[in-house]
């Protein structure tokens, strides 16, 4: 071989070996692009080359040193090719292993033995090119063969499973079924073993037998580890596996070791229970139920309480074809051949869907069509869905005539027929249903006598006839006021409504409480027009109900809205509401002041001081402010209200002043404080109001300053 090719070969070997070592070291961080994933899947193809080359080469090296006909095995090119192909195969394998799903320990053996072959072949290529080997030739031959055997065998285990090679002479235990009937389930096989599998098998398996304990086979489990048997029948407290699990987690002997997933108290209880009952490998769970430990276990296991007979799954295409915007079909759970079908009341609903369902009829476990316009015609198709367990036909258009056809459904357990117009004679035949457990009949046209009879005939079946209509008298809710404008300039109106049919709304405008019996109040028929300050009280009445609580709305006139105004002292930075403009926006603040932006808040050195300007000086008689009182939050009445007026800017004259007494108890709600004004026309008006500087003694914040919250300044 000429030098050029030899050096290329050498470089290739070197390159691939280094790449292999590098990727093995940093394997954890590797991200695999799709191209290399394809390369990875070529591993099963290429792996046969290195196996052959290494085996043949290894065997050749076992021959006496100078054997002529195997001289090729002492050539650097042969081992370069072997090393390169082994490295390439190992790289492919490395990529393939990233797809996951392989047993870690076996994989490691496989991986590192392949690396060892690569390095060994590399060494041979290097030394044969440059002279002598450091050890006799046959040592390398044997090593290569041994490594190839290890690597090849572990690879076989990875692909075909651990027992593949010897299975013909040593049959494996049959695979455990995933789902078992609770009645047939065994304590060890179905309760204890899954726990061991989850928490113990990782270290006590044929590939990794810590403490000489093999738990994956019955023999190994019974035999125990280096300290003998791990359980003593009937005596859990002297059983090693229980004792070790109960040691403190930091103890070296504690099992599972610190840092590994631990047994939960419930799991330990199950193991404890099994040993206590004699560590019987054949005992059935049903023999002990209901025992607290096992009942608890049964509840939290994902074992279905009901085991359905195996049936073949419906074809995916027919399911997809039947699905629509009013018909949803899903398996009961992952992998189950049984389906649930939900029919919805949708504009595209078509009654022939039930006929079409026959295609997957055997697979339907649950059919829910409540609330859809199903009629008697569809009952026949439904009665053909032989495996139906649950059927919902509440609030449909069925008359009940042909309901007995449903008796065909031998497995039916739950039948919902509430909210229809069924007669008791239509329903009675259904009570003969052999397997039916629950029948929902609430909201049908039954007389009391019918109900009694039905109950008598129902026997053990759960017959839900619903709650009898509530005969207690309830109170109506309040009428609703639509967008009430509490502050108005000229006039406004109050629109009232009530969501219940037939309700009468009574109202008054004179402060009296409306009351139909006493003849107080007017019946609301059309929006109430409000032209002046007015409090309207209203309540709803309806026969058969208590009248609603009374509600009221206070309307306030704000006749003169200034053309311009300015707040001389800004409101507290936390309570600036929707800006200063809210003072004249004709909008009432809401009591939840912290989120409602209809309020300006003042405290301590702050107070309300607003200067207004009118283009056409109005004739003013009264100024009021709307305030919020909320004692818990220190929102209290103001201490005073002053009004200043003038027609020449700057020359203010006090035209009204009013002080308010400090309250002697908590006050809540929205209240108005008025101040009479010396009548006259003023172009400039200033309104000043101060919060209480010190809260009174009875208040829990005594001595602290009070707050003043203002939502509107009313000038009349």
């Amino acid at each position, binding site marked *: 071989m000429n030098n050029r090719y030899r050096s290329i070969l050498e470089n290739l070997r070197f*390159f*691939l070996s*280094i*790449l292999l070592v*590098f*990727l093995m070291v*940093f394997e954890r*961080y*590797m*991200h*695999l*692009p*799709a*191209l290399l994933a394809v390369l990875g899947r070529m591993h099963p193809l290429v792996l046969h080359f290195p196996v052959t080359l290494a085996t043949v080469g290894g065997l050749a090296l076992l021959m006496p040193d100078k054997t002529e006909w195997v001289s090729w095995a002492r050539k650097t090119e042969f081992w370069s090719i072997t090393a390169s192909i082994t490295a390439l195969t190992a790289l492919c394998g490395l990529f393939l292993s990233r797809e996951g799903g392989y047993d870690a320990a076996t994989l490691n053996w496989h991986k590192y033995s392949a690396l060892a072959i690569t390095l060994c072949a590399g060494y041979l290529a290097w030394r044969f090119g440059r002279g002598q080997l450091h050890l006799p030739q046959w040592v390398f031959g044997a090593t290569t063969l041994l490594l190839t055997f290890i690597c090849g065998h572990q690879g076989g285990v990875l692909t075909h499973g651990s027992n593949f090679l010897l299975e013909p002479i040593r049959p494996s235990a049959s695979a455990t079924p995933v789902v078992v009937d609770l009645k047939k389930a065994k304590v060890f096989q179905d309760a204890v073993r899954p726990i061991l599998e989850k928490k113990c098998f990782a270290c006590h398996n044929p590939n990794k037998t810590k403490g000489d304990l093999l738990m994956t086979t019955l023999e190994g489990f019974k035999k125990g580890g280096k300290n003998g048997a791990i359980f003593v029948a009937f005596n859990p407290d002297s059983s090693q596996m229980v004792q070790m699990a109960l040691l403190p987690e930091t103890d070296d002997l504690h099992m599972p070791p610190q840092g590994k997933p631990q047994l939960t108290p*419930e799991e330990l209880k199950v193991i404890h229970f099994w040993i206590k009952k004699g560590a019987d490998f054949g005992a059935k769970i049903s023999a002990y139920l209901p025992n607290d430990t096992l009942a608890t276990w049964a*509840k*939290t296991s*994902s*074992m*279905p309480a*009901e085991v359905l007979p195996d049936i073949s799954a419906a074809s995916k295409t027919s399911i997809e074809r039947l699905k629509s*915007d009013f018909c*949803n079909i*899903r*398996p*009961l*759970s*992952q992998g*189950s051949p049984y389906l649930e079908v*939900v029919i*919805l*009341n*949708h*504009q595209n609903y078509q009654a022939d869907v039930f006929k079409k369902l026959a295609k997957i009829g055997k697979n339907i476990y649950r059919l829910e069509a*409540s*609330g859809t316009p199903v009629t008697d015609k569809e009952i026949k198709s439904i009665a053909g869905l032989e495996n139906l367990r649950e059927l*919902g036909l509440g*609030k449909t258009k069925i008359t009940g005539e042909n309901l007995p056809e449903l008796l065909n459904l031998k497995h039916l357990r*739950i039948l*919902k027929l*509430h*909210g229809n117009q069924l007669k008791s004679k239509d329903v009675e035949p259904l009570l003969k249903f052999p397997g039916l457990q629950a029948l*929902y009949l*609430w*909201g049908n046209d039954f007389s009391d006598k019918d109900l009694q009879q039905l109950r008598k005939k129902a026997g053990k079946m759960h017959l*839900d006839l619903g*709650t009898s*209509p*509530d005969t207690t008298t*309830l*109170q*109506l*809710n309040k009428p*609703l006021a639509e967008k009430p404008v509490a502050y108005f300039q000229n006039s406004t109106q109050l629109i009232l409504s009530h*969501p*219940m049919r037939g309700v009468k709304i009574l109202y008054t405008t004179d402060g009296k409480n409306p009351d139909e019996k006493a003849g107080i109040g007017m019946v609301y028929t059309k929006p109430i027009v409000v032209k002046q300050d007015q409090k309207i009280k209203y309540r709803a009445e309806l026969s058969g*109900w208590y009248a609603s609580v009374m509600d009221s709305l206070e309307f306030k006139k704000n006749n003169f809205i200034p053309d311009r105004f300015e707040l001389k002292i800004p409101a507290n930075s936390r309570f600036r509401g929707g800006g200063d403009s809210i003072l004249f926006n004709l909008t009432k603040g809401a009591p*939840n002041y912290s989120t409602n932006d209809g309020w300006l808040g003042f405290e301590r050195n702050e107070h309300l001081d607003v200067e207004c300007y009118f283009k056409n000086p109005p004739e003013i008689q009264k100024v009021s402010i709307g305030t919020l009182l909320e004692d*818990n939050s220190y929102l209290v009445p103001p201490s005073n209200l002053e009004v200043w007026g003038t027609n020449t800017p700057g020359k203010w004259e006090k035209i009204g002043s009013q002080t308010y007494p400090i309250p002697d108890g908590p006050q809540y709600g929205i209240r108005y404080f008025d101040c009479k004004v010396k009548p006259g026309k003023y172009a400039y008006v200033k309104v000043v109001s101060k919060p209480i500087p010190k809260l009174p003694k009875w208040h*829990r914040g005594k001595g602290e300053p009070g707050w003043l919250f203002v939502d509107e300044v009313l000038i009349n």
Partner: protein
Amino acid sequence: MQKEILESKLNINRRAFFSKMSVGIGSLALGSLLIPELFKGGEEDAATLIPGLSQFAPKAKRIIYLFQSGAPSQLETFDYKPKLREMFGKELPGSIRQGQRLTGMTSGQTSFPIAPSYINFKQYGQNGTWVSDFFPHIGKIADDICVIRTMNTEAINHDPAITFFQTGNQQSGRPSMGAWMSYGLGSENENLPAFMVLTSRGKGNSQGLYAHLWGSGFLDSVHQGVMLRGGKNPVLYLKDPEGMSQSERRQMLDQIAELNQNSYEKIGDPETMARIQQYEMAYRMQTSVPELMDLKDETDNTVKLYGPDCLVPGTYASNCLLARRLAERGVRFVQLYHQGWDQHGNLPNEMGGQAKDVDQASAALITDLKQRGMLEDTLVIWGGEFGRTVFCQGDFKADNYGRDHHPRCFSIWMAGGGIKPGITYGETDDFSYNVVRDSVPVHDFQATIMHLMGIDHEKLIFKHQGRRYRLTDISGKLVPGILM
């Protein structure tokens, strides 16, 4: 979806592969291609599990979660502590408090006087479940519910606590329970989202609710909760604008879908597919939502059952009625919130009002589901984000007091969907301060709920930013004592 995500990932990696190839010579450079993390930051990883169906036959097919936001006091609801009467106003022993951290609202208090419940309790049902007189209707359904008195949480403030309950983590950003269910179980009705949210507000002191509570976190955004509002427009911007016909809208959506499809093919962002699906869902909701909200077909008896407020949009009662209608229509997870349970002061008064809002309608929901044969496979949960302290916050009078936040024990109830009915689970000490027996931490509660829905909580996993996430994160075990 999985296929698309995989494809987009391959796209990205293939590009990276070729770009590096042109630069790198030698094995190390070549090797580094396969190990992007070695030289640059991590890349997002896609889901590890193909979800969409329950792993085993579920007990519950859907959940209605009546969240009492603000944290109702366990001492005035379900945790009856008659002995406290004798200790009226006495200091809470330090041996009970055991250094429990306090909120900023009571940490300055020098005295922690014991405040017994203002309201009396009665026993209801066959097992004598204790329920306070605030909740006579819930008392009547005692045989259908399972009261858990030993819930406990890690958080002591509202938003972290409620976020913890909904997402399994105190910081926001993870998917809500409903989003996990939508991801894990898929939808039963294509015309409505699998996860819907309804909110209402009582007159009591309330705390904010934020959309992250029903967000989808790192899951595909089709799984996020859709909120229905009370009033004329239950879903904002759902109606066609004036002058636009249904066919025009259809045409517009088709065109948009085409553009999105182009963009998806070019860039491969799975969120684009989510967007296309969302448009389609909104289109279908144009008919399904009005039908849902139309209460004309509810009988007078039903109205009486829930109380007349159920006809007033935006009330808790009307949300309960809607929850039943949503459940009937195959919505997987209906999340209600009723705000106003944060009684730091004025507790007897405010709690009376709050209880009045929810008592009748909550009980009605159970009764109504039961008579429709739906309680068997519908899980209903009622409760807040934590409990309240046995000692008084602020001014203390026999008939007026407040309670601060308390994480170590509180009461909730559950019903239907495979929950053992008529029992009271767990026991707290005489002060309702610590759990004595059968503690139920939030992650255990979540694990149990998932189990009832047919999901192993350790197996519903989403890998995001190089880490695997579950609703129960790294803990959570089933609570067998409350299972049927």
